[in-house]
């Protein structure tokens, strides 16, 4: 397993290279440059700006420079506000991370409960409600959910705030968390319902029941624990979904996180920042996938890596 983990970690390096390369050339293919504005710059000013931000020289030499700096952990400086890109990411990350973690916890608890309740009441009322919520949740992307939630709970009922994010302030936490977390929750509910149904038919569940365990004990101690394993396999796509979802939810609630940073950097063609954030997300997703795979092996002794 250690050998497997080391191999996987090493495989992240070519992945970073590939993502960096694709991003680099896509980005430079975008019409216009970062210094294009309504008032054209003088040639000398443009030349000096290009020099300052490593944008002089041919495309291949810029590419080489970029990779060289990247290998040294240097992401360069942002064209838009002249700051270190690592600093910008470090500053914006905590907000996005808080939002992402809250949404993730919400998705897991809500999704698992929904799936378990649906499976226990198979073909009953609880099942229909669970399946309906899971299907509807999958069809309600965050940009549909966010405005509807805001209108109902912030404007009409006045329970929560319309904008912003603040940890431990439920006025600002609940709506962004639900907007981001409902889609993955629906996904988890579907998977956990299916795996619970499968497990409730297993022999060891019958054994647990026959030794006199209460139904709650059977479900909590034996069924839910084992139903978690298939859910682990979809955590990878769920992390990726939380990352992309954060663009939309951060825009909807005016949260100054990494998602907002990325969207703005594309709009103003801040090359370095686009690269930095893309690479950061790609590495994050790769590491999360690795952790999930290792967890999978730990959770299910039948799997050997």
């Amino acid at each position, binding site marked *: 397993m250690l050998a497997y983990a080391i191999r996987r970690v090493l495989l992240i390096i070519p992945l970073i290279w590939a993502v960096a390369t694709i991003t680099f050339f896509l*980005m430079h293919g*975008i019409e216009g440059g970062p210094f294009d504005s309504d008032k054209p710059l003088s040639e000398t000013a443009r030349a000096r700006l290009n020099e300052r931000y490593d944008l002089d020289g041919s495309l291949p030499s810029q590419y080489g420079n970029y990779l060289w700096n990247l290998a040294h952990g240097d992401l360069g400086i942002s064209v838009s506000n002249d700051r270190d890109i690592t600093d910008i990411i470090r500053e914006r990350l905590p907000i996005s991370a808080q939002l992402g973690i809250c949404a993730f916890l919400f998705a897991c608890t809500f999704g698992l409960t929904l799936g378990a309740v649906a499976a226990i009441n198979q073909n009953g009322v609880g099942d229909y409600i669970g399946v309906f919520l899971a299907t509807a949740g999958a069809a309600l992307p965050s940009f549909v959910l966010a*405005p*509807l939630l805001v209108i109902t709970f912030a404007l009409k009922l006045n329970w929560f705030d*319309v904008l912003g994010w603040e940890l431990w302030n439920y006025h600002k936490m609940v709506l962004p968390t639900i907007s981001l977390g409902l889609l993955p929750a629906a996904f988890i509910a579907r998977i956990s319902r299916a795996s619970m149904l499968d497990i409730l038919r297993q022999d060891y569940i019958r054994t647990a029941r026959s030794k006199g365990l209460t139904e709650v004990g059977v479900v909590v101690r034996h069924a839910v624990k084992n139903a978690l394993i298939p859910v682990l396999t979809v955590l990878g796509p769920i992390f990726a979904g939380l990352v992309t979802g954060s663009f939309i939810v951060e825009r909807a609630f005016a949260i100054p996180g990494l998602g907002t940073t990325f969207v703005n950097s594309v*709009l103003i063609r801040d090359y370095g920042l686009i690269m930095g954030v893309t690479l950061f997300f790609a590495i994050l997703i790769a590491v999360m996938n690795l952790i999930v795979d290792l967890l999978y092996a730990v959770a299910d002794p039948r799997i050997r890596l």
Partner: protein
Amino acid sequence: MASESTIRQPFDFAAEQLSTEQRGLWEQAFRRLIRNRLAFAAGLLLGVLVILSLGAEFLPAIQRHDPIIQDYGITNQGPSMTHWLGTDILGRDMWARLLQGTLFSLKIGLGTQVIILLIGISVGMSAALAGHKSDSILMWLTDLAYAFPDLLAIIMMRQMLFGRDWPIIGKGDPQIPGLPSALLATILAISFVSWVTVARLVRGQMLSIKEQDYVLAARSIGASPWRVVRVHMLPNTLSTVIVAVTFGIPLAIFAEAALSFIGLGVPPPDASLGSLISDGYDNLYSNNLLVVWPAIMVAVLMLSFTFLGDGLRDALDPRTRK
């Protein structure tokens, strides 16, 4: 009479056998689809939406008002008999704008799937049939695509394709009637990023079909490789592909709406569902109905395609028959 029947019978017999058999497969699937009430209702609803939004493009009687003409005398009105869904902050009729947005979304959904199918089937097929090297290239590409956050890639691809006057896409006036260049750039961007799923599916199906007895039988009686692929292998991947396409449509609609929502959609004054949601969201305080209509429409489209996809999967795969 007798002689006529003896002459015609062998020919007719064969033709009839063939046609009932072919009809049988699809008819059975269709029957199963109809029996699934949810999928049937979803299909019906989608049909109505397609007719309404296409009709609005050509028939003023359906559209009722021009979606882009502003009238400052009637801004922010609620629903009324003249303006069924009210008007927006610039006095444009929401019914007309909603139908225009729906048509854009449907074009995105179907357009991406056409391109994804073209790329996905040819790449998936060559990966499965052309030997190890092309196969490992595809696998590497798909791994990469799964590692890359797809919306990030779509955003950059769309920015690269738009406003640069590429052939076919163009800049300003649409090169293809009914497909403004921003829309086409978005369609291509989504397709170039999401074809890998179909390619992987087709590859998987082809690899397993390649080992089936009927393929061996066809090859052993001397069918050419191209004929084996065309007659025996491609049709058998069809049901998987159809289901993937049905699920791919809502994903594409989602991607376009997300792009529009963060400000990378069709340029105003045209409206897509995403840009309608975005505009409505910005004017939440003055008129919160503006965001509700397009939000409901996106949800209805995505739900309908999902239900239809579920129904199609059950109908086309005989193994899931209960």
